[in-house]
């Protein structure tokens, strides 16, 4: 083993690389650096894969939640259509107190549905306008009977019912194609 110091005809770099001690240390350092770099790349790749798996899992969970919300909105839409038909029937027998009770529940349900699975802007606007018009007429039927117009109540409930049926159909077709908003 030679530990000779660098002579004048050798560069320091040359000595570092050629010397038995410093050369070995340098090569060992290089090997460790390359190995360390490889390990770092491996860790980065593993972290990236874990992040992708987590994101995929979150997306799948979100989709599952959306599917359930979609299903709930569909069930609610069918239930609400039946309740509206009942109210229209009650207008004929002038049972306005019962109408007021039923309408309060329907209005709450629809408001939740609009947030959960929003329909088109036109449908949302129509539903909100019809809810407002029907609510106003129901209040008049009890508090100001002389101003109450049963035809407006019927028309607004008809409009509400047909818009909810349209919405229900669109939800069904988007469920069949697997698209969820």
């Amino acid at each position, binding site marked *: 083993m030679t530990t000779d110091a660098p002579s004048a005809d050798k560069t320091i770099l040359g000595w570092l690389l050629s010397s038995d001690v410093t050369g070995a240390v340098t090569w060992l350092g290089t090997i460790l650096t390359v190995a360390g770099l490889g390990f770092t790349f491996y860790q980065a790749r593993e972290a990236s894969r874990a992040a992708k798996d987590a994101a995929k899992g979150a997306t799948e969970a979100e989709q599952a939640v959306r599917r359930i919300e979609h299903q709930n909105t569909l069930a609610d839409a069918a239930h609400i259509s039946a309740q509206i038909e009942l109210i229209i029937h009650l207008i004929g027998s002038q049972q306005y107190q019962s109408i007021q009770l039923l309408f309060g529940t329907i209005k709450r349900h629809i408001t939740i549905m609009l947030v959960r699975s929003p329909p088109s802007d*036109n449908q949302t606007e129509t539903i909100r306008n019809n809810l407002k018009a029907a609510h106003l007429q129901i209040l008049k039927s009890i508090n100001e009977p002389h101003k109450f117009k049963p035809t407006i109540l019927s028309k607004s409930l008809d409009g509400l019912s047909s*818009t909810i049926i349209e919405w229900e159909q669109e939800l069904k077709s988007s469920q069949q194609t697997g698209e969820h908003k």
Partner: protein
Amino acid sequence: MKSIDDLLGILRDLTYEDKLRWEDDDALTNSFQAELPKYHVRIFEWTDEDDGTSGLTAQLFTGNGFGNVVDSSTANQFSSRYPTLLEVYIAARRSARNVSETIESLEEELKKLKKK
């Protein structure tokens, strides 16, 4: 099957782009018509006399007169189709009543008042 409802968006857009001009329809109040080479379109507002509620009707005719209705679409104010018809109706009224020119003229008058 296609219907006049499929044309409503195009009618609205062409009107706002000033490529389709509407005129007051003398046959009815609150009614406007637009002439095209082979067809013409009319849109009007109506009121139900029983309860005061309103609605809109759009009609498509062949030729010049109002005799040959090809298709029509009606919606009362409670229908989900009403907002789309209303957009066309408002565009038609603005076109027929030269609302752009009126607003520009009014803007000028207001600017003059502001300078005084």
